């Protein structure tokens, strides 16, 4: 792990000097700002049961579907396409260090982008002067959920990037995997055929992997260690597969 910090600082530096990072950040904030304003205008028309914070985090999947593939599709696919992975792996660095460095940099950017949406709530509080809009419980819970689920989502994106040398293919794989995990698991959870006798244990597993339920728990202020374990173990698994993905490509290149 000697070179992890060298690789990480290199990756962050590359992100900071690259104009595309700022373009992505601006577009992301514009998009999230649009959602936020829509929610607020909806609230101004008629009274609602839930706080705007709650609804805002309810829509987390929308940015996840496009931001995560875009942020991660480049990381390993580009290295392989340019051949720089060869110069990288012939220095005394291990594949694990390379994958972890890229993963951490992408995760920090993801969290940073989400963190900047905190400004919306500040602006709302400042100009409405009404503390009711800023419910600290759901806010903290929501950001905690974003931070922890982001670990897994970014790891899935990195894994997709390790599978292909083509960025577009990597992006589509990442999108499909995330879609399957978030939406696919929800529709599986609603499927009636799973509720039948022999499938009961499978049903339990599907129920455990309901990301929407996790989100509800987090925004209600319930931090369940089972949820943490789900995301952490998923992250570790996805990263191990990414490392294997890079090494398998070397064996068969």
């Amino acid at each position, binding site marked *: 792990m000697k070179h992890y910090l060298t690789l990480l600082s*290199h990756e962050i530096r590359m992100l900071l000097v690259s104009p595309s990072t700022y373009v992505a950040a601006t577009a992301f904030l514009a998009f999230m700002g649009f959602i936020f304003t829509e929610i607020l205008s909806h609230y101004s028309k008629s009274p609602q049961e839930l706080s705007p914070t709650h609804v805002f985090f309810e829509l987390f999947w929308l940015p996840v579907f496009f931001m995560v593939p875009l942020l991660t599709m480049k990381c390993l696919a580009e290295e392989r396409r340019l051949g720089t992975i060869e110069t990288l792996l012939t220095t005394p660095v291990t594949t694990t260090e390379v994958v972890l460095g890229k993963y951490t940099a992408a995760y920090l950017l993801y969290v940073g982008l989400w963190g900047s949406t905190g400004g919306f709530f500040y602006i709302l509080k400042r100009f409405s002067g009404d503390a009711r809009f800023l419910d600290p419980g759901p806010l903290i819970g929501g950001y905690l959920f974003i931070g922890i689920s982001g670990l897994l989502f970014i790891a899935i994106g990195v894994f997709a990037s390790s599978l292909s040398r083509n960025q577009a293919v990597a992006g589509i794989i990442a999108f499909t995997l995330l879609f399957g995990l978030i939406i696919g698991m929800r529709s599986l959870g609603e499927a009636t055929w799973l509720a039948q006798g022999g499938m009961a244990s499978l049903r339990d597993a599907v129920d455990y992997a309901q990301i929407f339920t996790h989100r509800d728990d987090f925004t209600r202020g319930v931090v369940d260690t089972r949820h943490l374990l789900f995301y952490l173990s998923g992250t570790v698994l996805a990263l191990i597969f990414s490392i294997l993905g890079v090494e398998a490509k070397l*064996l*068969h290149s």
Partner: protein
Amino acid sequence: MSDPAAPAIEVSHLVKTFGGVTAVSDISFNVARGEIVGFLGPNGAGKSTTMRILTGYLPATSGSVKILGLPVASRPDEVKRRIGYMPENNPLPEEMRVSEYMYFRGRLKEVPRRILGPRIDEVLEVCDLKRVRHKLIGQLSKGYRQRVGIAEAILAEPPVIIMDEPTIGLDPHQILIVRDLIAGLRGRMTVIISSHILPEIEVTCDRVLIINQGRVVAQGTPGDLRRDIFGHSTYELDVAGPLATLPALLSGIEPTLRVDQQQEPRADGFTHLTLHTGREDDLGEALVRELLAHGFRVRSLTRVHPTLEDLFLAATRRSWDVVAPPSPREHPA
């Protein structure tokens, strides 16, 4: 630690197959410390694959590779600390500046921070890159990019340097610079370079390895190879006189000396002849004396030195004969 007496590179019975296709089949060779070795072969001969296995980037299917006595397969980390590698096509990150890239690579190669700055200055100076050190690599011309790759390979002063076609795409002036650069490493570092530019190899390298279809077909100094592959010397002669008596006269000088090719006599009476002999030492003087003594007029006599190009062609063609079914007509080589 590495064994101080072990050769720099030791390859024995190396085999690499990709999904049933044999890229490298049973290659064995040694490279002594401080030696500069040229690695020649036609496209697809297995040069790049062999080099990648040497660096530990690709695993071998069978056989063993040792760098400074360290087996690459079981101790890749220690081997990677001792090599500088410049891959084929020299991949570089486009969006970094030259000095940034050098710093990053130096840190990855575990050059201590304290000496990294002066070392980068030194390497940029040696490779004539000082003027472009703050430029983006993506904006550099091919020649500069090649030199960035070479600078990067020698940055950490590794004892073994492996370069895959370092002079490809350079103009003659830059080739000269790279040649001097590599020659400057002689004795301090072991260098193995592959190239298509044969005169380059001949000038810079102590020894040449020619591989074809995954096999070593010839190895040795360019002089040794000439003897091994051609096994004879060739003379070119412009004479006028009683040509019918020539064969007898020639075998009087040296039994293996014979006329190989004879052109039609020209209008001025001179004929161009090509002579072959198995003798290595120069027969020129004896030849001129005998010819003059027997009434020939000699206008020119040249001993032909086969270039590395001829060697390369002969060696790769010879291996083709070995691999392909024997043709009815044997090649003279």
